[in-house]
């Protein structure tokens, strides 16, 4: 083989691998990414039941109900609406009424959501960023300044 042929083979092979990778990425982008929504988004966008999504908002005060064997339901709310979340499992350490939460799972109906994972924050100064942004957008952001010690 000449140097030129060799180079063409290499480019052809590399192009093939890259094309496969690109195909995989595009396919996976369609299928596996999950959108973040607040309860109000779900109503506004008319999200269909059966859709997999991340639901974020505040845990409504007094809405937590515990059933047998770690069956838990609670309501996630934002300024405009709320959705009941069903979850079976251990809640994160910093899961609290009135605080931010992100649940990932499947929308069952316009008012009910089945979560397979529930995330709260990593430390007491921190609100999930998506939730904080949504609340800011809706004008209901009170800030964490009162809860968190000033750092600067």
């Amino acid at each position, binding site marked *: 083989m000449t140097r030129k042929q060799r180079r063409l083979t290499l480019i052809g092979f590399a192009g093939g691998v890259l094309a496969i990778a690109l195909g*995989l990425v595009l396919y996976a*982008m369609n299928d596996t990414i999950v959108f973040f929504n607040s309860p109000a988004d779900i109503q506004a966008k008319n999200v269909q039941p059966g859709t997999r999504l991340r639901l974020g908002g505040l845990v409504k005060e007094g809405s937590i109900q515990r059933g047998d064997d770690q069956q838990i339901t609670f309501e996630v709310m934002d300024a405009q609406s709320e959705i009941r979340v069903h979850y079976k499992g*251990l809640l994160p*350490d910093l899961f609290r009424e009135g605080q931010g939460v992100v649940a990932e799972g499947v929308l069952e109906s316009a008012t009910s959501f089945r979560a397979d994972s529930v995330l709260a924050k*990593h430390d007491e100064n921190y609100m999930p*960023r998506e939730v904080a942004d949504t609340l800011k957008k809706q004008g209901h952001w009170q800030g964490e300044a009162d809860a968190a010690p000033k750092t600067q």
Partner: protein
Amino acid sequence: MFVEAGHFALALALGLSLIQFVVPLWGARANDPVLMSVGRATGLAVFACIAFAFMALTIAYVTSDFSVVNVVENSHSAKPLIYKISGVWGNHEGSMLLWVLILALCGAVVALARNSIPLRLQANTLAIQGAITIAFLLFILLTSNPFTRIVPAPAEGQDLNPLLQDPGLAIHPPLLYIGYVGFSISFAFAIAALIDGRIDAVWARIVRPWTLGAWAFLTLGIAMGSYWAYYELGWGGWWFWDPVENASLMPWLAGTALLHSTVVMEKRDALKVWTILLAILTFSLSLLGTFLVRSGVLTSVHSFAVDPERGTFILVILILFIGGSLALFAWRAPLLKQGGLFAPVSRESALVVNNLFLATACATVLIGTLYPLALEVVTGEKISVGPPFFNFTFLPLIIPLLLLLPLGQTLAWKRGNFLGTAQRLYMVFGISLVVTMAIFAFEHGGPVAAPLGIGLGVYLVLGSFNEIVARSWSRGTPLAVAWHKAANLPRSTWGAVLAHAGVGLTVIGIAATAWGVEGLATVRVGDRIKAGDYEARLERVVPRMEANYRDDVAVFTIFRQGRELGSLESMKRLYVTRGMPTTEAGIMTVGLGQVYVSLGEVAADGSVGVRLYHKPLVLLIWIGSLVMALGGGVSLMDRRLRIGAPVRAKMVPAAAVPAE
């Protein structure tokens, strides 16, 4: 007093690194050996200054000097000493200081290598190191000063984030940073070669140990981070495809590719341009990782205070270095001479394939990590790209690579024979196939992934050691002779074999997770919870007080098929200062597997939510990583790397070269 001195030392280091950047570079242009050797002295001095600054901050932490803002925010007088010390880098400012400390340490080591590196190359390399040091020292001094005082000084600190109060903090960040920052040396060497417009096998031989060392540390750092997340977060997972994890995986993938292409360059003088590009990309990905983690664009336990000014500053550094180096590459790379030829079927080609797959896999991880950020900036839409995406894109690219690995390792240099090579591996194919079938038959319709993955792992381990056997034993060789021959194979061969076998062990560990079982229940004292063959009985829940936290300790007895194995403790912990609860999982190691108990809330009536996992062979995931890093270490001790570089004879006393 010490604190101000530390601050001053940092400023001094900045001035010195300016000299380190300008003078040697100028010296190399003017061909003046005196100016060129200025780089050495400044390299050592910069390290001394930054080490002093680091020590000053450490003293402030150890003595709980609450007149320093950084100490107030991240320490507490009742905190155990080890967390006072490791807490120095358990925050944004301190961790950046550790970053530049390691950067300066790398520079100092290059400066100390007086004889093994040609002066010109050394001068240019140290100048580039100086430039990186300038950028990050400016970043620290202008946006993230750890030495800021507070008046009046509070009586007590706010304590360290409880998730970080763990021995993992003492180990994981330094290892990871040595890996990240170690690649800066490969980068600096690559840029130096571009400036000079000259590159050869000697260059590859000088750079290879650096890449190898950085790679081994990065491997350890990632593995340690993974194990830490596994036991500390209480979710039982060891890898989440979290953007912060991806930020460390990307330089690892690129660095692995770099390691292999440097071998080709050293042995065959080929792939020069590609190797330079990889060295640039690897460190660029390290910088990108630093940006992602430190700027606050991602929220995780790693992102400390979010401050847009800092994010912008790191972004500017990122653009400057990546853009600048790629521009230099585009301008100078065509000057580099083409190297040796090789046939399409050869070890060189196999390593090209390795590089291609690793680089492509790295690119998919990059897309998956950056796409959500880009989409949010452009459309405002928030998405999450999680494990399904990465499993779907990353695995199809990595599995063919792993299948080809033993073949490539066995192929001859320059011109190989595919069929002949496959023949040399027939025993390996055979045994792996038998193992796979046997596991299939044994598990009676369990998950398909486990036997296939374990078969692949066994194939990798055997395929690696096949190299040793093939090179030391043939039919009729007495065992003693074969053993002697094997022991005398070059260390770099043993290193490669160990590293590849480590990959195999990790693959086995990952595949076996398919056999993991878990159970979830609300239990009271005396109740049992079951997961597969394993059961846990809650014996009692007792409170326990420690210096800065309070535990609710749940004691469990573990049974396998009704037989008692022992007991373990799982805890709900409350850190008093921050009022923050954490979960401390209870873990019992059974063989290479683990029984893992995570606690939920302890209710008022004494019932506890419990999740019990059994994870067979899970330890292999991390043992495999340790073996990989060990392989890197063994390869570093190769004779060729220790004494192979050209040395001026008069400077080496005869005794310095041991007869081997």
